[in-house]
């Protein structure tokens, strides 16, 4: 493990706790929007090589819908809400009150903007927790949406990190509909990849 990531168990626990409450907040928002029970797993916090990050969420070639928000101010980093495409379409349809979609094969403009807003709400719920717990300013960018290979999407954040490191600190929270068998086919991921200066700030503030 490189020096850049000086992570004691206590520090990992703190980040897990932030992710737990943050993603819990996001899961509640999703549950209210969809009127469905959404469950969340205990978030994972780890330092991973870029290649291991590319292999998350089903692998580099897995087709996903991604809402990306870059955060700035006191805490800087990248946030992604990642959904498998069929699941994204299902949520979009539910949110549009079953508005009939003409073409099932491509993501339509309307679907995109609904999902973009969904990602915005979920990431916003998460970020408000992050900001409240740390008393640090978090300024999210306008959300961007993209349907493509997971690797091509997540590498955008890795490039940002690659100026300083060959590893990433990944805070990964999985949310999914309750009662469904757990698999990457239905899992939603909220990934938070903070820049290295940011988690140092978080640790300083929380004195761990």
């Amino acid at each position, binding site marked *: 493990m490189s020096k850049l990531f000086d992570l004691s168990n206590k520090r990992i626990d703190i980040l897990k706790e932030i992710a737990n409450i943050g993603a819990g907040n996001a899961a509640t928002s999703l549950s209210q929007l969809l009127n469905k029970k959404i469950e969340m797993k205990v978030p994972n916090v780890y330092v991973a090589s870029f290649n291991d990050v590319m292999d998350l969420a089903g692998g*580099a070639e897995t087709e996903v819908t991604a809402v990306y928000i870059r955060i700035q101010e006191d805490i800087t980093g990248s946030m992604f809400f990642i959904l498998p495409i069929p699941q994204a379409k299902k949520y979009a349809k539910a949110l549009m009150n079953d508005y009939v979609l003409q073409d099932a094969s491509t993501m339509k403009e309307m679907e995109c903007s609904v999902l973009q807003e969904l990602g915005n709400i979920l990431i916003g719920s998460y970020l408000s927790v992050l900001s409240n717990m740390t008393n640090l300013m978090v300024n999210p960018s306008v959300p961007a949406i*993209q349907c493509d290979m997971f690797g*091509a999407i997540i*590498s*955008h954040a890795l*490039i940002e990190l690659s*100026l300083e490191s*060959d590893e990433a600190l990944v805070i990964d929270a999985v949310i999914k509909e309750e009662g469904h068998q757990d698999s990457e086919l239905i899992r939603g991921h909220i990934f938070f990849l903070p820049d290295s200066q940011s988690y140092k700030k978080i640790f300083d503030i929380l004195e761990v």
Partner: protein
Amino acid sequence: MGHFENVVKVGISEMNVVKAPWKIRTTGLGSCVGLVIYDDVNKLAGLAHIMLPDSSLSNKEPLNCAKYADTAVTELIRLLKNYGGNIMFFKAKIAGGAEMFPHRPSSKIMRIGPRNVEAVKQHLLSSNIPIVSEDVGGKNGRTIEFDTNSFILTIRTVNLGVKQI
């Protein structure tokens, strides 16, 4: 792409060299550039999955050569020569360098895809290696595979199908 095919996989910010009949591939190129330099006489090929245009952007030692356009070109040439390649026969094919989130500029990595492409081209030019074909830019991800028998680069995308160059 099962286990039975002779394919060597190259990860992000990595490089490798193969001889015929092996194929070489890398997955999930976004703003990164996949650079193939091949020798069609000695039938070998090297592939690098490049993340950044210039090694001067790094403030970290030791340097990972495959990560930057300038060092990747130099190192790939060196490796191919080690494998018995002759620089007189070297040719290149490149793919990637998309802008996955074109309207979300961030401080340090603005237009990183096109900048990666420009840097790779410039270093190939100064090494006198001709670019035979390319599939660069746009805003889509790519998975690429190079065949050391046919010297064809196959590019798979999610939204634009499969293409061979």
